């Protein structure tokens, strides 16, 4: 029979965990219903403690760390980023501005090599400009070696 003094669940748990004042213990000692309920709570506590002990007592194998499963994917992604970054840097590399005649030849050779890989202007560029050139080399605003102009003129004549 439950009385108005019967313990709440919180009070029962306090009794079960030795946190209750003597008055509550005294009630449990007298009340059969509270004693039965206390037995249930104590049983649950024992089960919970046993479950947690069993859980934490699991023998652990040497488990691989979680990130290791992603290691190959991360490595591939990192390589792709590095390659893309490298290409970007090369594409944005500044073109050297020719500062002298020798540099101009090297510059034009580089441009020729890049744009006309199959047939370049190397043979033209290799031809030294005539020392006694009467006219200044170049067509209008296009700075061109004199040998190149002669070669282009000859090509035009052949076509005709």
């Amino acid at each position, binding site marked *: 029979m439950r009385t108005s003094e*019967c313990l709440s669940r919180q009070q029962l748990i*306090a009794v079960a965990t030795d946190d209750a004042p003597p008055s509550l213990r005294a009630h449990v000692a007298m009340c059969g219903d509270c004693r039965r309920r206390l037995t249930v709570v104590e049983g649950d506590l024992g089960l*919970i403690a046993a479950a947690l002990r069993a859980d934490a007592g699991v023998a652990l194998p040497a488990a691989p760390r979680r990130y290791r499963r992603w290691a190959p994917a991360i490595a591939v992604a990192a390589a792709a980023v590095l390659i893309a970054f490298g290409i970007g840097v090369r594409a944005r590399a500044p073109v050297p501005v020719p500062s002298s005649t020798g540099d101009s030849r090297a510059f034009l050779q580089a441009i020729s090599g890049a744009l006309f890989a199959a047939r370049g202007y190397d043979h033209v560029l290799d031809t030294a400009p005539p020392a006694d050139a009467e006219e200044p080399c170049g067509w209008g605003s296009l700075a061109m070696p004199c040998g190149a102009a002669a070669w282009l003129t000859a090509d035009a004549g052949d076509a005709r």
Partner: protein
Amino acid sequence: MPADPGRPPDHSTYEALVEAHYQRVLRLCRLLLRDPHEAEEVTQEAFLELHRHHGDGVVADWGSWLTRVAVNRVRDRHRAGWWPRWRWRTRSLDSMPLAARAPLPDRVAIGEQTLRRIRAAFDRLPRRQREVLTLRQIEGLSTLETATLLGISENTVKQHLFRAIEALRRALRHGERDPADPVST
């Protein structure tokens, strides 16, 4: 430094303390951290600390001392923030297979489903409730000792313990009526 002649000699060697407390401290760390590798690291740190101080001979109860060191180290880990914990996060105990094929005796007695429910409910508890429940119910510390160790009041310890036990009992009952509820008359 000469030993105090009035003091009883300390017969507990470092090896004896390791033998007596290592598994207990490791279990405590596993429960508080929920990460087996991190728990092992913290346990090793605690025993390294023990090795440093063992010669001092100023500690009367090395078991309590180890518990305090381990709990403080665990709390340091929690304070360190999410990044180191995420970085070193490994498989949780939930996904950890047993090393032995035969289930542990406790598991047989409790039942796998019940164990899973309790474990899941324990994982869902707020950190403070987990700490209080572990120290009070697993480690057997008193309310005063737990309060001192965690730097909170005894009443707060009682509140946390009640809430944690209620949550785990609900998980244990799994929606069934609680027989500890008072029978209405």
